[in-house]
């Protein structure tokens, strides 16, 4: 798959159920992904280095240790897979926050839910989710993540040396994303 050293893709999984976390972690690990699992949307945002109250951080720089912030920037996440039904911040809320963030919006997000609600599924896809998995999630579902991850990585090597933060020149890739979504749409 190319001459670049193969770092495994890093997937961040979010689910409030301990049982579901164990399952998704195993599904991802067996598919050779590096996995981080958290139990809430807010913990996910924390891990991604995005704090809920950005203004607050500017007002109280002391409340966020700069070292911690820099450390988080170095953690690269290639895909986020999240449960929909979670107390507090739902998977949909998390999706919105990620897509509204300059630094995180290009990370592909996949939603999981045990309920087959078409309006819910469509809303998530329309608001930027790459895919929607019905629980129980199968190994075959996890296999579908590869193209989303590869797209992200090829974008990376294209803009070699630039980290995703603070980059404004993703316009062409945006078009690619939209094209991909439409392609999926017609497949459905």
């Amino acid at each position, binding site marked *: 798959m190319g001459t670049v050293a193969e770092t495994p893709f890093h997937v961040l999984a979010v689910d409030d*159920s*301990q*049982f*579901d976390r*164990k*399952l998704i972690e*195993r*599904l991802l690990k*067996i598919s050779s992904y590096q996995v981080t699992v958290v139990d809430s949307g807010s913990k996910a945002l924390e891990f991604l280095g995005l704090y809920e109250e950005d203004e607050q951080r500017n007002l109280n720089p002391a409340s966020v240790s700069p070292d911690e912030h820099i450390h988080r920037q170095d953690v690269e996440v290639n895909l986020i897979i999240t449960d929909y*039904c979670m107390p507090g911040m739902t998977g949909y809320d998390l999706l919105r926050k990620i897509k509204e963030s300059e630094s995180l919006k290009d990370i592909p997000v996949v939603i999981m839910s*045990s*309920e087959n609600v078409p309006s819910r599924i469509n809303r998530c896809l329309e608001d930027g989710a790459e895919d929607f998995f019905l*629980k*129980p999630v*199968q*190994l075959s579902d996890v296999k579908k993540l590869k193209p989303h991850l590869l797209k992200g990585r090829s974008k990376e090597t294209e803009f070699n040396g630039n980290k995703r933060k603070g980059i404004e020149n993703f316009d062409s890739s945006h078009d690619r994303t939209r094209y991909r979504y439409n392609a999926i749409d017609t497949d459905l």
Partner: protein
Amino acid sequence: MEVGQMQRRLVDYTKSLFMEGFLDSQFLQLQQLQDENNPDFVVEVVSLFFEDSEKLLNELTRALDQTNVEFKKVDAHVHQLKGSSSSIGAQRVKNACIAFRNFCEEQNTEACMRCLQQVKQEYYLVKNKLETMFRLEQQIVAAGGSIPIIEMSS
């Protein structure tokens, strides 16, 4: 009993669980996630299921015991139990939860209490079956044998 016999007994026992609807193909999916590097995955995940379920069943008993039953809360618990039983492949528990949710929607306390009894019954049944199955597996491993893989052409 020699290993071959034990293995045959395990296969027959496991097959019966599928025939009788206690387990469905989702359980086979879980077994596929187990390998030499994660030899206890199924046992671990089933143990989590037991832990979760018993907590939920207690919550449900408490919730239905209230003078003013909060059906939204009851439904949320049943939804969770339905989810995990579905992920484990505990088919009869899952089906009992589906029926339960319908009565939550109707806000029918009597029917909900009957459903809870049904869910409990199915849960303890499948728990018993799974524990027996794990015991049989342990005996085989202790005797130096390997656990046979069930092929189901469902």
